[in-house]
């Protein structure tokens, strides 16, 4: 008898399982299918893919990232650092055969700073300017004392009528234009504004390009360079490949002092610190500097002075 009862019990269970889930199956399916197929279509299809399961998975994985208020800082203990002469020796090897005036040394100063707030930015004049091929035009009588002084200071074009004629013919062969005060009336009479104005070259007192003594402005114009902190790093071209180590040292010192001074002049609440100084060039990797001029086994600065 026992086997028959067991068999019956099994049968009855089978019947239940065959009936009950069938009802359940239909009902759950009808709910679930609408839920899974309709919900994403109405809400998510516009932005995400058509696969609802994938979207669901993604949504679960995404966690809210912690946003840091300051830029990431690295541990420099493992970083190999170089003295200036060693870095220059490597860079000069990387840049062999290139034109010594066209290849530039670049400097990047990483700061410990907040992502928001004021940034370090300023203009400065390096002791040895990097970009010296700026063509400057000075408008003053060609035989005056100002003209000779301007030519000595590095102006490429000096004159009055000759320049006006050239500009009217469309030959504008300069990047900056300075006017001497006494020549201003003549320049306005020649209607230079029509030609120079659209190019942003027209001298005006507001811009500081109408001056009494052009030669003093010239030096600033030729050697001036701007720097600005971007993403926690201040970058600037610091020298030409043909500079000697001593000249580079002078440029770097002036630049670093200027940046430090700017950091100090920011409001008291903001604290910026120097994190790292990296020297690189147009085609070389970056060399983290250790602040020394030369190391015990580096070559003499004299050997790095040929261009």
């Amino acid at each position: 008898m026992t086997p028959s009862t067991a068999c019956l019990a099994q049968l009855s269970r089978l019947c239940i399982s065959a009936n009950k889930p069938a009802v359940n199956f239909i009902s759950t399916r009808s709910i679930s299918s609408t839920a899974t197929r309709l919900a994403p279509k109405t809400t998510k299809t516009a932005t995400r893919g058509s696969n609802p399961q994938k979207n669901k998975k993604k949504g679960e994985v995404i966690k809210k990232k912690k946003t840091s208020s300051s830029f990431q800082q690295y541990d420099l203990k493992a970083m190999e650092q170089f003295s200036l002469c060693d870095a220059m020796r490597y860079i000069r090897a990387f840049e062999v055969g290139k034109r010594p005036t066209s290849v530039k040394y670049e400097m990047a100063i990483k700061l410990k700073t907040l992502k928001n707030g004021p940034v370090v930015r300023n203009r400065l004049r390096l002791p040895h300017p990097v970009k010296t091929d700026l063509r400057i035009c000075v408008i003053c009588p060609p035989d005056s004392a100002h003209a000779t002084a301007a030519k000595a200071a590095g102006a490429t074009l000096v004159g009055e009528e000759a320049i006006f004629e050239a500009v009217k013919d469309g030959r504008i062969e300069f990047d900056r234009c300075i006017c001497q005060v006494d020549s201003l009336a003549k320049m306005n009479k020649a209607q230079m504004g029509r030609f120079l104005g659209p190019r942003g070259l027209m001298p005006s007192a507001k811009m500081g390009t109408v001056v009494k003594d052009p030669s003093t402005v010239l030096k600033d114009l030729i050697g001036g360079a701007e720097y600005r902190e971007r993403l926690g790093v201040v970058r600037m071209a610091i020298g030409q490949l043909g500079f000697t180590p001593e000249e580079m040292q002078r440029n770097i010192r002036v630049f670093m002092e200027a940046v430090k001074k700017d950091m100090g002049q920011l409001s008291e609440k903001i604290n910026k610190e120097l994190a790292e100084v990296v020297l690189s060039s147009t085609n070389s990797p970056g060399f983290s500097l250790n602040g020394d001029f030369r190391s015990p086994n580096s070559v003499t600065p004299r050997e790095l002075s040929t261009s």
Partner: protein
Amino acid sequence: MVSVVRRMRNLRTLLAIRLGPGAAVFPPEVNRIHMDFAAKPLDGHMGPRKFFKQCLPRLKFHNPAVPMTVNRTTDITGPATLTIHFADPATAGKTSPAISSTTSSTTSTGPVAASTSPAPTVRTETIQMKHVHESEILSQVMALTKAKIVLPTPEEEQEIKDLQQQRVESEEISKKAKIAKEARKRAEAVISAAREST
């Protein structure tokens, strides 16, 4: 700023600048090296180009005071020459290296180093580089100048071994990653195909 790890990886190229073909020290009488060849690597100008790209940086690193100039023309039919200038060996060792800075006193406010000239050139040797392999150019330069080859120090040899080890390991890892990626792509393709059919 680029992360420290990535910058350190870049700096591994420094080993390749210190050692390899072209790592040699010239005797003091070598005054300057000048190369003349075409910018395009056609008609026999490939050897000179490779010599310039691969060997010249190493020569410059070990001889920082020797000016090395390169003039690349647009004319591939022209010659490809390498000229070595020699000074008098008797005086060459005594005169200090020349100074020639690109600063000018008109623009600089700091002190500008007065440029000095190197020991006068007494003879020049020219190597015809057209249709010559870079290793052949290098061996000719070494023979003409009697340069001393720089050999790796024990530490540098260790560094080279470590780098090779790293390279082997990273290759294995990339192989594994490639297999895993392919398997994942295959699985994804099967799933998407099944979805499209339903």
